[in-house]
C-alpha cells in the first residue's frame, strides 16, 4: 500500500534529487556531473540486486562483483565482436544493441548465480561469505588469464552501445536509460519484498527453523533470491561497462564486492532506497574527499565505522526511522 509515510517521502526526494542533478548540470553545461549521477544510478542498481540477497535474505554475498563483472564483460565482448565481425560462439555474432546485451547479461549472471548459489547456499555464516568470495576470485583470475579479451588490461568499448531511438553517446540520454532501469529494479525489489516469496525470504533470514517448521524449504527460496539478485547486479554491470566504455578485471575484484556491501550498509540494509542512498553518499565522498586527498577511503572507513556503531539503519534509517514490517 503506497502511503505518504516518512520513508516514502525520503525515497521520493532521493528519486527526484537523482534526476534533478543531471538536468541542472546539463543546463549549466557540466556533463561531468551527469556522469557522476549515472555512476550513482548504476551502482545503486547493482547494490539493489545485492540488497535482495543480503538485505531481505540475510545472505552476505562477498562475491557479487562476479555478476557485476560478468555483465560488464558481456557488454564488452559482444561489442568487440560486433566491431570485428567475428562470431562469438556457435556462429552467433556480436551486437551493439543494449537490450540484447542486457538480456544476455541477465542470462549469463543468472546461470552463473544458479551454479554459485547452489553450492554456496549449502553453507551459512562466515563460510558462505568465504565461498562466495572464492567463486568470485575464480572468475576474476579467469578474466585476467584470458588474453583474447584483454586479460589484465581489460577491454575497451570504442563506441557506446545503441538503444533504439536514443542517442546513447549523449550523457543525459544515457543517464535516463540507467535511471529508468534503476527505478524498474527498485520496483521489482519492492514487489518481491511485499510478495509471498518475499515473506518466505525475510522469514528465512529471521528464523530458518521456523520456516522449515511451517513446511517451506528455505534452500529453494534462498537460491531463487540469489539468482534474481545476481541478474540485477549483472545488468548493472553491463551498464557500467557502457558508462566507462571500458571493462576490466577490476569490476570482478573482491574490492568491488566489498564496495557493494558498503553501499548497502551506508544506505540502510534491506531498505528499498538504501542502495541508492548509499551509492549517492559513496560517489559524493569519492568525488568531494577524493578531490582533497588521495586517502579519501580512510575517511570513508571512519564514516562506515560511525554508521555501523551508531546508525544501523544507514542513511535511510537516520532520515526515516526504523523499518516497518507490517
Amino acid at each position: 500500500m503506497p502511503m505518504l509515510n516518512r520513508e516514502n517521502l525520503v525515497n521520493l526526494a532521493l528519486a527526484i534529487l537523482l534526476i534533478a542533478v543531471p538536468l541542472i548540470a546539463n543546463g549549466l553545461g557540466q556533463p561531468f556531473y551527469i556522469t557522476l549521477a549515472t555512476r550513482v544510478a548504476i551502482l545503486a542498481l547493482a547494490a539493489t540486486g545485492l540488497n535482495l540477497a543480503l538485505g531481505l535474505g540475510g545472505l552476505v554475498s562477498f562475491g557479487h562483483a562476479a555478476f557485476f563483472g560478468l555483465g560488464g564483460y558481456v557488454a564488452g565482448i559482444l561489442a568487440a565482436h560486433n566491431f570485428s565481425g567475428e562470431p562469438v560462439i556457435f556462429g552467433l555474432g556480436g551486437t551493439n544493441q543494449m537490450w540484447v546485451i542486457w538480456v544476455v547479461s541477465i542470462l549469463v549472471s543468472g546461470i552463473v548465480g544458479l551454479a554459485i548459489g547452489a553450492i554456496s547456499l549449502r553453507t551459512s555464516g562466515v563460510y558462505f561469505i568465504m565461498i562466495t568470495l572464492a567463486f568470485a576470485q575464480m572468475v576474476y583470475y579467469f578474466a585476467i588469464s584470458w588474453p583474447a579479451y584483454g586479460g589484465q588490461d581489460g577491454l575497451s568499448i570504442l563506441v557506446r552501445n545503441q538503444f533504439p531511438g536514443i542517442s546513447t553517446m549523449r550523457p543525459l540520454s544515457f543517464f535516463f536509460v540507467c535511471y529508468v532501469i534503476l527505478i524498474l529494479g527498485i520496483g521489482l525489489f519492492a514487489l518481491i519484498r511485499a510478495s509471498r516469496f518475499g515473506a518466505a525470504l525475510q522469514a528465512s533470514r529471521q528464523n530458518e527453523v521456523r520456516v522449515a517448521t511451517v513446511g517451506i524449504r528455505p534452500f529453494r527460496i534462498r537460491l531463487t533470491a540469489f539468482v534474481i539478485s545476481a541478474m540485477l547486479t549483472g545488468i548493472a554491470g553491463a551498464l557500467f561497462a557502457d558508462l566507462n566504455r571500458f571493462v576490466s578485471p577490476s569490476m570482478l575484484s573482491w574490492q568491488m564486492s566489498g564496495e557493494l556491501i558498503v553501499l548497502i550498509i551506508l544506505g540502510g540494509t534491506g531498505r528499498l532506497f538504501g542502495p541508492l542512498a548509499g551509492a549517492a553518499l559513496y560517489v559524493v565522498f569519492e568525488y568531494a574527499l577524493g578531490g582533497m586527498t588521495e586517502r579519501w577511503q580512510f575517511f570513508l572507513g571512519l564514516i562506515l565505522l560511525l554508521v555501523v556503531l551508531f546508525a544501523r539503519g544507514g542513511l535511510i534509517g537516520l532520515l526515516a526511522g526504523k523499518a516497518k514490517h507490517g
Partner: protein
Amino acid sequence: MVEPVLEISGLVKNFGALRATDGVTLDLRPGEIHALIGPNGAGKSTLIHQICGTLRQDAGTIRFVGRDVGALSVAERAQLGLGRTFQVSSIAPDFSALRNVMLAVQAKQGSSFRFFKPVMLDHSLIDTAMAMLERVNLGARARIPAAELSHGERRQLEIAMALALGSKAFLLDEPMAGMGPEGSKSLTRFLDTLRHEAPILLVEHDMDAVFALADRISVLVYGRVIATGTVEEIRRDPTVRTAYLGDHA
C-alpha cells in the same frame, strides 16, 4: 482399532557410544493427548528431533498419517501436517504476529513462489491468519511485532501457526515451560479443547498439566520407554515411581 496418526517403532539413535534413543515404540491415536515424560537427559529432545526430521534415526520407523516419513525433510513432514511448537518459542521476530501466521497459511496453500501480489492485499491469507489468531485469543495483538509479545503470547502464536497448517497432529515440546501458574492453567484449558482438532503428543515436565490432560502417558528413561498407560496406571506403576515420579504421585 483405529489407525494411529503417528506410529513410532523400534527407533534407535546413537551419539557415539551413547544410545540416546533405545528402541522406542509409541503411537498417537486420533483425539488423544499422549504425554511423554521423563527426567532430564532421558532423550525426550532427541526423540522429538527424530519425529520432526531435524535428526535422522539410526534404526526403526516413523509412520505419520499412514506414510513412512523417516526419510523426509522437516519441511516435507510439516506439509503432511505435523504441527510443532518449541521448548523455546520459535518465531520470526521482525514480523508481526499476523505475518507470522500468514507465513503458515501461505505454506499450507502451497505457494511461496509468487513474486508480484503483495501479501498485505491478499485477503485469503489475512483472513485465515486472523481467524487462527482469534482462536488462540491473540486477535487484539495481531499487529504487534512478534519480538514484543510476552512469553505466553509467543506460545499462543506458535499454536496459531500450527493450527494454520491444518495440522493432523500436534507435537508440543514443553509448552508450560516458563509460564506462570495462571498461564499454565489457561493453557491447560486451551490444550484440552485443542485435542478435538488433532491429537497431541505432549512433552511436559509440569505434572499437574500432564495428569490433567493426558489420556495416556509414556515414561522415557535412558532412551527407553519404561511404561505406557493411563494416568492411573502410570501413577501406580512401581518402576515409574522409583525411576521418576518419586513422591510427587
